[in-house]
């Protein structure tokens, strides 16, 4: 048996073990590998910086636990932190049943909690929790917020939340930040919110898997910008200067994991080219 054939016949579990070790190393000691910042993240940051005082921002927390546990958690926390440092009003809402309780999890983050200290619930920000019905829920919310959401997450009536007095429909929002796992997400907001309010700017916190499709919406100007998966989240943290050692470890681990896959891909294909023709039968 040739070297390549032996290599190809390796137990998949060996590959899995290599992955555990390669990612584990940077998680134990940060390597402080370098990082460059992509233009999309810069534009994302700029769009929030440019918000005028008093602007109303919708924060769509449309995430699954898995999305939040991976790339979207850091994105959501960094975005919330950034928004809370600005003199704007924020309406948190979720069209994913699993996303709503995670809004409170975002608030627990050290940096977010710190930025929230001077903000008053009901005057500067509200949490309207979960709205069912997916795309229909979005349409209903866009047309009539008060009719769709009678009360906030604690059961307080909207009439008792001062900032909601001026927020009746999608036309009252200047910006929508959508942290999206899937459907409903950005495209549904485009169809139901931006189609009704052509002036609504949109920022999207995107999973890596959705980046390629989201680029098309960005190129057409429908989205102002996007955060590109976990990479985008890390870059954004760097811009905002809220990077912790754990984040650095995560970023290093990301590099390591990509390198592992690349090496496997390379070895696998070298082996394939080396043994090509020996196999027979298979094109």
């Amino acid at each position, binding site marked *: 048996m040739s070297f390549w054939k032996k290599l190809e016949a390796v137990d998949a579990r060996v590959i899995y073990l290599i992955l555990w070790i390669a990612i584990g190393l940077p998680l134990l000691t940060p390597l402080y590998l370098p990082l460059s910042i992509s233009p999309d993240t810069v534009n994302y940051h700029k769009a929030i910086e440019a918000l005028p005082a008093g602007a109303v921002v919708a924060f769509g927390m449309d995430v699954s636990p898995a999305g939040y546990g991976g790339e979207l958690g850091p994105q959501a926390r960094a975005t919330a932190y950034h928004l809370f440092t600005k003199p704007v009003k924020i309406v948190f809402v979720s069209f994913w049943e699993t996303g709503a309780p995670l809004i409170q999890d975002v608030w627990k983050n050290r940096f977010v909690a710190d930025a929230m200290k001077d903000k008053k619930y009901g005057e500067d920000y509200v949490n309207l929790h979960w709205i069912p019905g997916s795309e229909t829920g979005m349409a209903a919310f866009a047309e009539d917020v008060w009719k769709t959401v009678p009360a906030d997450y604690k059961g307080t009536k909207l009439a008792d939340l001062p900032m909601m007095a001026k927020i009746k429909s999608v036309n009252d929002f200047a910006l929508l930040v959508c942290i999206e796992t899937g459907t409903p997400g950005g495209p549904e907001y485009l169809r139901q919110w931006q189609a009704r309010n052509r002036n609504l700017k949109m920022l999207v916190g995107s999973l890596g898997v959705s*980046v390629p499709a989201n680029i098309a919406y960005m190129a057409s100007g429908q989205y102002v910008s996007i955060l590109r998966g976990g990479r985008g989240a890390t870059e954004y943290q760097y811009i905002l200067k809220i990077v912790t050692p754990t984040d650095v470890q*995560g970023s290093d681990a990301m590099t390591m994991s990509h390198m592992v896959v690349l090496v496997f891909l390379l070895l696998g294909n070298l082996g394939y080219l080396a043994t090509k023709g020996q196999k027979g039968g298979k094109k």
Partner: protein
Amino acid sequence: MAVDLATMLGIYVYALFALGSYSFTYKDNSFFKFAEHTMVALSIAYNASVAYGYIRFTAVQPVITGKDATFLIPLVIGALFIFFFSKKYFWLYRFPIAVITGTGMGLAMSGTISAQFLDQVVATVRLPLYVVDKVLGFRPMDTLNNWLIFIMVMGTLAYFFFSITPESSLGAATSKLGLIGRWTMMVAFGSAFGNTVMTRMNLFIGVYKNLLRDYTSFLGLAALILVVATLEGQRAKKAA
């Protein structure tokens, strides 16, 4: 650092389920099946609970207090879902489904035409095929990119024409254009592939980080699961 019991227990539960799920990569075993069944039960129960909360306070409350009795209508129609399980009255189940599908379809259709059709067309139409910057003058790279986008978008669209057969001259031209489209999409799917790797790896890193919060639970449970899975594997081999 003192950690309260609930937090500690939480860390162990998290590790049990995360490692139980990962144990599938070693071999199928009881811990994985336990994790899988727990996930199904919890996710359905979670959705049912939030649904209950919504119905309770958005619809039932206004009806009970007499504030808005019209909510009785969706409550009754919605309740027809239960007839999904009746052979005799199955037809009743179709009414709530009809309202939900119709509303969703209507909204999606009216929104799609602007957001995904016209806006994407307009964005392509707006690309200048000869880019001149006021300061920098003629921009060859930008010009080339715009041409490429123009041709590649057309190619991708052409690839998905199915009712033009390649015998006609129009068909031959379309299939040539479509070929460009197929290659364009291969590059695009490569990009999708790379970005999928990023998402999956980041998710694993996120869980891994949480597991590393506490070494005792992580390593202890990992060892336990490995031993049990190995023993189970040996027993299954003997039985077979």
